[in-house]
């Protein structure tokens, strides 16, 4: 896996500094707007079918009054060794040569097997045909496919922005500059808790951040080798080195 990663020109990834996350949900909203994710009305939540490609999980730690809210944004981890990929019978989800776990909507038949395979529960099924109020029709992003009912969708690391960035760079005969490509969530994050970049570029911000002592990945025992790296919360009350997650 690592070998493969080094051969690539780009290996897109994200670093999430949990210490900086305030749980403001700006990333969730930005993603919703950028990627034409259907509106989550009340009944979607009641039936547990709400879609948000990135979600901010909130956990309580401790007992009142000594209680703390902990936030952790979770999106598709773009695992190098993704459990969702081998189970799809039609190759609707596969790994591309830029380290992205991509979803091909046209191929998807909706077995939902990938969603069962995903330990991070970041894959979403379109139970209904998506509908937007009339006023929202013109707000849809023309660069992103509107998914029909019966197929899976998930975070694409804003592949439309990556494509545009790479295309512009190629046109000018250069490599993509660090920070040139921003996903909707990283762009919206007011505290820069989310950082997107190229792991293959040693000088990129994400590569440097990944070397931080606080780094960890989610569910490492499943050996999925995610391309999203988390930096642990710094808790002044606790001894250094203890991490959560």
């Amino acid at each position, binding site marked *: 896996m690592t070998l493969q990663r080094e051969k690539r020109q780009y290996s897109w990834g994200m670093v999430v500094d949990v210490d900086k996350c305030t749980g403001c949900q700006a990333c969730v909203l930005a993603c919703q707007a950028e990627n034409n994710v259907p509106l989550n009305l009340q009944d979607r939540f009641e039936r547990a079918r709400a879609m948000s490609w990135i979600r901010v999980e909130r956990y309580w730690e401790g007992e009142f009054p000594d209680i703390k809210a902990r936030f952790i944004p979770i999106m598709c981890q773009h695992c190098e060794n993704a459990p969702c990929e081998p189970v799809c019978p039609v190759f609707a989800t596969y790994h591309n040569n830029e380290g992205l776990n991509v979803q091909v909507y046209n191929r*998807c038949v909706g077995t939902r097997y990938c969603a069962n395979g995903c330990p991070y529960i970041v894959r979403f099924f379109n139970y209904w045909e998506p509908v937007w109020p009339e006023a929202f029709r013109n707000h849809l992003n023309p660069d992103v496919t509107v998914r029909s009912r019966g197929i899976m969708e998930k975070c694409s690391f804003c592949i439309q922005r990556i494509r545009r960035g790479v295309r512009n760079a190629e046109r000018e005969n250069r490599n993509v500059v660090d920070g040139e490509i921003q996903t909707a969530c990283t762009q919206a994050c007011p505290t820069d808790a989310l950082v997107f970049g190229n792991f293959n570029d040693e000088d990129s911000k994400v590569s440097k951040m990944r070397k931080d002592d606080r780094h960890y990945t989610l569910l490492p025992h499943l050996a999925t080798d995610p391309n999203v790296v988390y930096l642990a919360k710094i808790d002044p009350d606790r001894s250094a080195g203890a991490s959560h997650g």
Partner: protein
Amino acid sequence: MQQRRTIDQIHTNRVLLNGQLDTPKWWAPTVIVLGIIVAIGFFLIGIMVNKGLGVTGLSRPVYWGLFITTFVFWVGISHAGIMISAILRLSQAEWRRPVTRAAELLTVFSLLTALLFPLMHAGRPWRIIYFILPYDFARGIMPNVRSPLIWDPVAISTYLTGSTLFLYIALLPDLGNLRDRTTGWQNALYTILALGWRGNPRQWKLQTVGGILLSALMLPIFVSVHSIVSWDFAVTPAVEGWHSTIFAPYFVIGAVHSGVSAVVTMMALMRWLWKWEDFIRPEHFDALARLLIVVATGWLAFTFLELLFAVYGLDAPELELRDMQIFQWPWNLLFVTFLFTGYIIPVGMWLQKSVRNNIALMFWSSLFVNIGMWLERFMIIVPGLARKTPFVYTWEAYRPSGLEWFILFWSLAWVTFLMLLFSRFFPLVPLFEQKESQTFGDSIKIGRVRVPAIVREAD
């Protein structure tokens, strides 16, 4: 154990062909009622395909629910055929004879039903052909052979083809028999289907050899079909309670348990409905119940092994899942029901000889087994998804919608409907098997000794 009774061939023909030549009065109303239920079921499936899977109770992360449970259930039932007609045939268990066709038929119809469930449960069923047939070689996009979902249709269609051939070969002598006893369009139909069967020695030899070859060829399927179905779950490391290495043998033995029990249920119904007391006798129930005690106990051992393997690692999420499955409402109710209906009540009953020879009690105990086995699949599939991974933030409950329950009910009506339809045109008990077994049992007197009238060449 086996009481020998002499039933002459004329009586055999008259009684066993009563479904075709002299249709019982209850047949038409029953088929009409079932037909209505079947039609409503297909209409609801149509609505589901038209509107989307939102009409089910599925959510995130409970992406698989009642439909997949019922799929596994019917594939399990289908193991009846191969158990009865292949394994018992090769091991020359004489008592299998009257039930071979019914078991094989149950296999064919339950597989046909099972195949419908993954189709209707997919988000875009009209595109599913993509992974059943390899498509679009020009672009180099083959189906993903690493996915167990590719092997499901392969295994099931192999099994279906084998079983259909097996059923047909065993039907040939009886089709010849029916052709000789009918007139008009029925005669024309049976003439075509009987493929020129005249019952000469060469045809009998070919028919026997074909049957034995198919039994042997189908033995690997016996292991493969439910193993592959179990891998749908076992290859998923993300779901606690699915990712287990013992799933393949566990599912296979569970399938035999439910399949053979379904055959018992069906035998009791056949005995009552067509009045075949002379042919389906208590000794057959007795033999099946003895077999079932062994199978059920093996299956129970696997059930406990699965639990043991799960808790042995003392992995917190796995322990949490098992705690919910066994002790928390409403799963504790399901678990107790499953344990009692799947093993304790039926096996407790079968241990008594009086129960094994009592047709009504055998009918109810075998029904219990299948309630328990359906619950077993449900308890494997749903809790694992509802409590998936340590992200407690996404834990969900699952409440199947009315439509899902109706389609479960529909599948039962659909299989019964197909069986009854079949019984109108073809005998459910193989006449030639019955006569053959009678001949094997016959003895003739030579001088002072009685010797068997016929010697089996294979011995």
